[in-house]
């Protein structure tokens, strides 16, 4: 069980680092807006996936739940990308 707790702690640290990088990317005006947008989307997707799969333990749930959460994440990130790059 110690291994599980270590894994959870590593996930928490990765989430904090990814959050710090997201803030840096968002507020550094030397970074092109489109690149920052896609980077923040990617980091948000990775963070959500870690929370869902590791903290909520969805990776151990029946396949219907895993599929639902995967689709939900892709749909949310997809709409964020779509409304930025594929609308007038």
């Amino acid at each position, binding site marked *: 069980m110690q291994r599980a707790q270590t894994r959870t702690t590593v996930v928490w640290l990765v989430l904090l680092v990814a*959050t710090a990088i997201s803030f840096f990317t968002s507020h550094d005006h030397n970074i092109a807006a489109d690149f920052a947008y896609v980077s923040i989307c990617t980091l948000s997707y990775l963070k959500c996936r870690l929370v869902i799969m590791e903290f*909520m333990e969805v990776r151990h749930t029946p396949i219907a739940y895993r599929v639902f959460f995967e689709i939900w994440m892709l*749909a949310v990130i997809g709409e964020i990308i779509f409304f930025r790059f594929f609308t007038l």
Partner: protein
Amino acid sequence: MVSESSSDTLGAPARAKGFLPGDDGLWFFICAEITLFGLLFGAFLSARAEAPDVFRDAQSLMVPLFAFLNTTYLLTSSWLVALSVQIAREGRLPAARRCIDGARVLGLLFVATKAFEYWHEIDLGANPGTNPFFMFYFVTTGIHLGHVIGGLGLLTFVKTRLKDSIEQKDRLMWVESGATFWHMVDLLWLIILALFYLLP
């Protein structure tokens, strides 16, 4: 639903495929909740695509420090709650209660910071009627804040279930359910953070 194996203290249940932590009904509720939030996010994005300048100007009034602090509070509280589940499975109840206490303190800090942030924004003249950005902002974060407060109540109840006098099966059902709800609150915040504070 708590399977027989969920009382296993070696972590095997969490590795067995098909294990659903906590209450089955709660999972249905969570799937419905995040779907509704997904639609709300879509409505926000659609409105922003129609008036990008209005949204960009309004977003520039947001204070990143508040968002950074609140994200740190929620991620850390989620970590403590995840640890409390693992520790409760081992039967180390005092340690599990301490993790829940830590998570509750961080949750309260989130509420206090959010209240201060609202006060600051209203002081600048922003309110739900100012423009579409602030309408979506106050509605979305307000509903989320309600979930944080509800989650704090649930965690308080979970702490009362972490007692020797309660069967391990029932105890785990409560701590896993409370944890799952709290992680959902964390999950939704990560998207809110991106939409209202980070995306340029």
